[in-house]
Every structure is written in C-alpha cells, then in structure tokens.
C-alpha cells in the first residue's frame, strides 16, 4: 500500500506521457498507411503509363487518389510524431519550411499529372508522371531514412 501511494505521483506523471506516446504512434501508423496508399497508386499508375497493362481507363482514378492523399502531407507530420517506429528523419521538423516547400512542389506535380491524364497527349502523361516520381524521390532523399527491416 505504502508502495502504491509512494509511486502514485510517478504513475500520474507516466500515464499522460503514455497516452501521448500512444497518440504519436497512431499518427505514425496513419501517415505510413497514407504513404502506402500513395505508393499503391504510383505502382499501379506506373504499370499503365509504361504500357505494361491496358487499364488506361483507370488512370484517372489513380491520379485523383494520389492528389487526394497528397493535399496536405505536412499535416501528416505533427510535432511530436518523431519518435517510435518512424522512418521520418529529425531534420524534417528542424527544416520544416523546406519540408513544406518540397511537399508543395510534389502536390503541384500531381495536379499537373491529373490534368495531363484528363486532356494531355500520351507523351504529356509520361512526362508528367516522371515529374511526380521526382517529387517522391526528392522528399525521400532528404527527409526519410529507411530502416533495414522492411515492415
């Protein structure tokens, strides 16, 4: 009993910390799920754009999906979601303005891709898709560090 009373203040201190950690963990899980969805649309689009498969009529849906999921990437990285099983690098929060800029550029490239799919020539589609890929790679270059264990 004495022990419990003694450790109560400590517990009171730890519990909110635990729930904060929990929230951070869920934030991380959510953004990884969103990134996976984005990756899914990119993988599917790549097969169509490269002519490996003939679902050209589906391309618009993938492009729209990409755009919807990329509208606010910085919003997926709230302050405090930097510890836990994340591949996001510390500098993402230290260089927040750069991160926002890279993410805006990526969004613009996806908007252009959507337009190209709607009204452009096949060459426009290929070129616009390339630019989208550069956006993904550019941000991962600076702000993500993969772990050796793929999960």
């Amino acid at each position, binding site marked *: 009993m004495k022990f419990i009373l003694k450790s109560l203040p400590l517990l009171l201190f730890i519990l909110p910390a635990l729930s904060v950690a929990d929230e951070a963990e869920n934030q991380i899980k959510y953004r990884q799920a969103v990134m996976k969805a*984005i990756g899914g649309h*990119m993988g599917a689009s790549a097969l169509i754009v490269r002519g490996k498969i003939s679902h050209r009529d589906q391309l618009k849906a993938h492009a729209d999906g990409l755009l919807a999921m990329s509208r606010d990437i910085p919003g997926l990285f709230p302050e405090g979601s930097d510890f836990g099983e994340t591949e996001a690098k510390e500098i993402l929060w230290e260089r927040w303005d750069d991160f926002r800029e890279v993410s805006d550029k990526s969004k613009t490239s996806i908007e252009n891709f959507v337009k190209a799919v709607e009204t452009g020539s096949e060459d426009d589609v290929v070129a616009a898709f390339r630019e989208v890929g550069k956006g993904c790679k550019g941000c*991962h270059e600076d*702000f993500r560090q993969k772990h050796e*264990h*793929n999960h």
Partner: protein
Amino acid sequence: MAHVSLAVRLVARTFAGKTNSLSCMTRWFFSLSLFAAAPLWGSDTLVDRGAYLVRAAGCVSCHTNPDDHDNGGGGFLAGGRALRTPFGTFFSPNITSDPQYGIGQWSDDDFLRALRHGIAPDGSHYYPAFPYTSYSRLRDEDIRAIAAYLRTVKPAAAANLEHVLPWYLWRGAVAVWKGLFFEPAGFSIAPDKDAEYNRGSYLVAIGHCSECHTPRNRFGALDSSRFLAGAKDGAEGESAPNITPHRSTGIGKWSVDDMVYFLETGALPDGDYTGGFMSEVVDDSTSHLNNEDLKAMAVYLKSLPAIHNPDFAEKQK
C-alpha cells in the same frame, strides 16, 4: 588460351577476396569486341565519352556540394561536399579545370595514378573515401576520356577544405591500409559470359555500387565474399540494402525490367520511391545512362550469387 585461363584467374581473384593478397598486379586489359565496338558509351568524341563516364562512375554526387549556396563554392564538380563516414568527415576536393583551386594542370598520367592507384601528383596517398578502390577497374582509355572531359568543366575558384579525422588516420596511415587491402585490379572480361554481362559488370564496378552495398570489415575494407549483399550503418548512418538476387532479403523478385526502371527513375516495384544516397545515385548517375547500359547492369546484377542477409529480413515485395 593462355589469355582465357589468365582471365579466369583474374576474375576468380577479383571476386574471391583479394584483400589478403599483397602482390601488385596491374593493367590486364582484354580488348574484346564489345569494348572495341565503335560508339562506345553512346557517343563518339573523347570529351562526350568522358562526360558519359563521369556520370556512369558517379563522380558528380561526391564532388558537387548540394547545399553550399553562400560559400562561393557549390559549383558543378567544385567539391566541398561533406561525406560523414564512420571513420570521420571527408570533404571532396575541387576537380574543375581551375588551374589553381582545381586540377586544371593535371596530365593524363596524373589522372591514371589518382584513379587507378590512389596516388596524388605529389606522391602522397589518397584516402579510400575517394573510391579508387572501384575506379582502379577503369580502363586506360576511359580514364583518358574522363580527363579530357574534366578539362572542359567550367573552372570554379573554390578552395579545398580540410578533412576532419581522428589523429590515427593521418595520411601516412593510408599507405599501410593500401598495402593490406588495396590492389589496383584492372578490369578483366569474363570470357565465358556474353558481351552484355561483361558490360554490366564493368558499369556496376565503376558505378562503385559495392562501396555502399557491400559490408566492410572494421578497417573499412570491403568484404568481397559478401559482394553487394547489403551493408548496415554506412556513411551518414544509412543502410544500403542487399541487391543480390536473394528472394526474401534481396531483390530476387525484381525483373530485369524492374531494375532498369528503378535505375532510371528511383521507383521500386511496389510503387515506393528510393531515398537518401540512392536518390543521388539515380539523379546524378544512373538516370543519365542509356537503356542498353542500364539493362546490362540489371542482367549482371540478376546473375550474381544470391546471398542471404538477415539484416534486411523478409520483404513482402
């Protein structure tokens, strides 16, 4: 016939742990038709070929500082890029044609000694952070082409920075290291393999993929028994994955086409995109190569022995 058996021995040696061999063996080059064939690296003048090779060999990423906007440097190939390794921080030098700050006064022989033997014009040894361990495979004529091209690169008046290293890594120590772990290998053609394979093997060697993707011993020498099998905690703490065709821990499930597309764009087969150093390799190097060469690299990589690496466990891809 003598050539063939020599070539086989050379290949065996190159891939089966040359680290302990102290003997010095240089310059065995076999001009097989694939390398003699006319438009070599997709272009015909010496300077154009050099430009292509500088891309293929990945000189640009290391010798161009991506974030030096206000230091006066930051120019193309003007150096000043920090390379943080487990052994200390190296700063790449200026290799533009500037006669004072760069290497504008270098002769072809200076280039040959630097790239093949890791020796500076004043006779001192270069640190292997400059991957001459890979560039020793470059053929003479390719080094001359690189030299010709570098002489055309816009001069930048950017001074070199001092490396930041622990005391025991003074330049003299490099001679000892080289005695133990370095042998200017030259490139040898595998006579039992076709032209595409050999071309791919050459491009992967000079693309110095193994400098990141092969694990090192504690002296920083590559463990050639685990060639391209993945290395944890390399420069900047990044881990370079297993790129042998092991099915669950490497890239065994990738097709040749997947690899070509990856080297061209950085896209992984599952829709993810690469990052870190590999983004630079793709941006500055492999995306500049023609499709034929990328395919040759892919064919070669797919033909390597599959090595299991538990550090890069179980991919679902």
